[in-house]
């Protein structure tokens, strides 16, 4: 069925079995009023599986594991979200199903747009223009120092869409590093200068909008791009430069820590247990929820965290821990990590795809770390979403697009315009002159 000649029967069967086993848990341990609640959820999950597999088979790709993993995670997330506070697909899960479908479409779009690096290199200026438009939208349409655009009850977060553009800019500029210009006494690459300028603008915007939660994600992407530059070309690691970069990063982080505004300082030095019913309420409840869930959880829909603000987005990991248990929540994170590490099993063959894949993985890992460790009070609480699991259209679409970029690294299109070798003009045989007698 899938078009690369390999068999995926067992993987697809296990994918369906995974979702069926989760539905089995909901059936036996779940909190639902009528069986139809569960039937609708089962129809949605299995239908989405079927549509996803058919959609994956449309395009010829070299690898399909990322498609299957994405499908598995999105449907797991759909089951989790539908069960929060009681199993009810229509009030809890329908919106998430729509955003998951949008994520799948964004994934295919990301794949098709980014698999040919020759083409994307030519479109680089348009990516900068898109970033500029998104920044302008944030500055003008959000109505103040905010990252959200609200229109008739529908909210989007444009800063999320900057992430894939930023990864693309990082990747598209690396292949032209050898084109350097001399400024004063230094040879610098024009692309590197443009990238640094774009980074500064994005960081400044995040600071101005008080969305410091996303800042580490952008920093991780930029850090990866820098490391790829220092290691350009492939596998050649300049240890001194990397050490200098690490020291510089630590120094910058310390300066940012000291200069952080008062509301950030509050979070950095917050003692959540001293203010259990005030600023620390969410995190206290989240930690209590994890403890209440234990290894196996209290059962889907039986958790109390569903009444806490942002239980489906910022502290979603703890909500899953409470209802499904620490074991299953941990395994869900492991599944996401396995999806990201498939890139290591099949390393990309071009600098562009390698940098892009590194940036995407860095963005996901940074975001996951911020969400999970933040909600468990191990680092300051940032309010960043957990990729693929948290509710939110902008986040889901961005995650889908980023996975499409990973897929592009696995099934790239190598297409260069190569001039044909000119055929040598055939020498005419010398005309024999009749020797004059």
């Amino acid at each position, binding site marked *: 069925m899938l078009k*690369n*000649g*390999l068999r*995926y029967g*067992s*993987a697809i069967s*296990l*994918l369906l*079995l*995974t979702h069926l*086993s*989760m539905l*089995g*848990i909901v*059936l*036996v*341990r779940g909190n639902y009023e*009528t*069986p*139809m609640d*569960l*039937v609708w959820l089962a129809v949605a999950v299995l239908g989405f599986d079927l549509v996803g597999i058919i959609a994956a088979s449309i395009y010829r790709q*070299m*690898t*399909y*594991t990322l498609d*299957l993993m994405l499908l*598995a995670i999105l449907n797991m997330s759909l089951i989790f979200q539908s069960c929060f506070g009681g199993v009810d697909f229509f009030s809890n899960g329908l919106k998430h199903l729509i955003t998951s479908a949008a994520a799948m479409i964004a994934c295919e779009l990301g794949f098709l747009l980014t698999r040919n690096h020759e083409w994307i290199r030519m479109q680089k200026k348009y990516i900068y223009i898109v970033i500029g438009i998104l920044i302008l939208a944030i500055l003008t349409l959000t109505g103040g120092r905010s990252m959200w655009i609200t229109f008739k009850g529908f909210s989007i977060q444009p800063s999320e869409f900057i992430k894939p553009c930023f990864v693309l800019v990082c990747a598209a500029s690396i292949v032209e590093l*050898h084109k*350097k210009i001399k400024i004063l006494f230094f040879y610098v690459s024009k692309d590197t200068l443009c990238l640094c300028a774009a980074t500064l603008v994005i960081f400044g915007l995040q600071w101005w909008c008080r969305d410091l939660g996303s800042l580490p994600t952008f920093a991780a992407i930029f850090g990866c791009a820098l490391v790829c530059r220092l290691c*350009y*070309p*492939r596998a*050649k690691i*300049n240890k001194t430069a990397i050490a200098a970069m690490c020291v510089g990063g630590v120094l910058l982080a310390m300066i940012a820590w000291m200069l952080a505004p008062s509301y950030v300082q509050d979070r950095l030095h917050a003692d959540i247990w001293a203010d259990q019913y005030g600023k620390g309420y969410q995190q206290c409840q989240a930690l209590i929820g994890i403890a209440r869930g234990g*290894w*196996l*959880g209290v059962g889907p829909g039986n958790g109390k965290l569903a009444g806490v603000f942002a239980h489906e987005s910022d502290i979603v990991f703890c909500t899953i821990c409470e209802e499904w*248990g620490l*074991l*299953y929540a941990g*395994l869900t994170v*492991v*599944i996401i990590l*396995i999806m990201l590490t*498939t890139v290591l*099993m*099949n390393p990309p*063959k*071009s*600098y562009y795809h390698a940098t892009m894949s590194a940036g995407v993985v860095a963005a996901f890992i940074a975001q996951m770390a911020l969400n999970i460790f933040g909600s468990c009070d191990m680092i300051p609480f940032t309010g960043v979403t957990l990729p693929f699991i948290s509710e939110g259209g902008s986040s889901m679409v961005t995650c889908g697009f980023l996975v499409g970029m990973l897929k592009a690294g*696995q099934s790239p299109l*190598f*297409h*260069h*315009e*190569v*001039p*044909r*070798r000119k055929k040598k003009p055939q020498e005419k045989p010398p005309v024999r002159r009749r020797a004059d007698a």
Partner: protein
Amino acid sequence: MIDFNELFQYIRNLAIPDLVLCALAVVVLDVFALSIILAANRESRLCRKRWQKVSNGLELRFWDNHYPLEADEILLGRHVSADVRLADASVSRYHAVMTVSAGVWSITDLDSKSGTYVNDKKIKQARLHPGDCIRLGSVQMYLARQSNEPDARRTRKGGGQRA
């Protein structure tokens, strides 16, 4: 017509232990992850084969050094960041770049001072074929099919062979 209420009630009344149910779900998830890892492994072999087709399984040989062409773009030059570093004064820092498309390698001169020569002919951009002799400044190298000799020295940098 199936009576879902009765069926669901019957299943719930079976009182399957939580531990058994959760362990089953965890095992299924683990096996799924394992099957994906195995599938990814098979895919990586397939991709390697495809890359062999794309790159034509070629390598650069200069003196006793073998450099397998394992990326779609190979930078040749004197600079430390070049893929194939040629520590010779006649070679520019970023001298030439080799790219591949559908099994055909081509070389492009990056405005080097001493020029790039393929089979003793100065070129700006040219297609390459196995057996072609490439000369950058005074360094000469050959494009050849990859050898499977165990003692073949694979290198990322070297002095090259003086022309």
